[in-house]
């Protein structure tokens, strides 16, 4: 577990450094993800110890949203003032996105 965690942090660090150096407008961890993905492709397999730790971390993904979610405290004023556009945008956009994605995928399968 410690080994896998070290691997994740090393890839994240490389990603952050590459973003800083190149000025790419992409979050560092995303570059780290791509590098790890490429490494797995080159190796031809994901080792079990890495898979287990990643599954463990991702199965608690929703916990990691909580501190950011509590940040809603900082935005009460904005949400109070703009609740209508935000609520309509979220509900309509989510329904339309599900529909469009599904219809395009089905159309292209034929």
């Amino acid at each position: 577990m410690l080994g896998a965690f070290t691997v994740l942090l090393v890839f994240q660090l490389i990603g952050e450094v590459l973003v800083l150096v190149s000025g790419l407008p992409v979050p560092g961890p995303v570059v780290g993800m791509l590098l790890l993905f490429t490494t797995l492709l080159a190796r031809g397999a994901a080792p079990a110890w890495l898979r287990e730790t990643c599954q463990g971390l991702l199965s608690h993904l929703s916990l990691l949203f909580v501190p950011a979610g509590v940040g809603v405290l900082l935005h009460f004023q904005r949400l109070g003032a703009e609740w209508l556009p935000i609520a309509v945008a979220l509900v309509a956009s989510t329904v339309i996105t599900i529909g469009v994605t599904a219809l395009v995928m089905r159309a292209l399968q034929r």
Partner: protein
Amino acid sequence: MTGTFSEIWVYLSASPLLGLTVTLVAYQGAYWIYRKAKMNPLANPVAISVAVLVALLWFTDTPYPVYFEGAQFVHFLLGPATVALAVPLYANLGNLMKNLLPLGGALIAGSLTAAVTAVGIGWALGASRETLLSLAPKSATAPIAMGVAEKLGGLPSLTGVLVVTTGILGAVLARGTLNLLRIHDHAVRGFAVGVAAHGIGTARAFQVSETMGAFAGLAMGLNGLLTAFLFPLLLKLWGG
């Protein structure tokens, strides 16, 4: 007695231990409720923990930065968790290569639809620029969406809230929407939920079937990548 209590309170509220502990305890409690509610999407554990913690901070008059001193240790894990997405993405490579055209087409259509409809509707109804920029990446998984919002000039913490809300909405509304469109293939249903509602939608899809979950997870990873690379470019083209 009250003197001792306030001394303990002063001591604890100055250390990160309290913020970290209440975050974990609130989540455990919320997850217990979620399981008791038979994983009903309305009993979303993130929504419940956030509500409990907001109420707690409100009543104890604790500023968010003080809470975050402790909660940052949980928040920090979003980075490694994003890197960890490489593993399920790699595991689903077979599914991806077999369906490259339908999946690629659906991904691009869905990802653009999510951003354009959210920003368009928000703009038409008069939302501010910061809110619109925070809305744009809301269908991507939280660590990516928050990173992208920061790069775009939105408010990462607001995006975090919008992402969680989108996930809950997607998990609740997917079944009705897809039934209305008469789409019954689990691969298509899973992929659509994953594009629109990231990790919360994916967790939901896994409860229905393994296939639906796998395609939702694949969609979440791919949409995260596309959002991270495409959105900052689109904003540049748009002249923002």
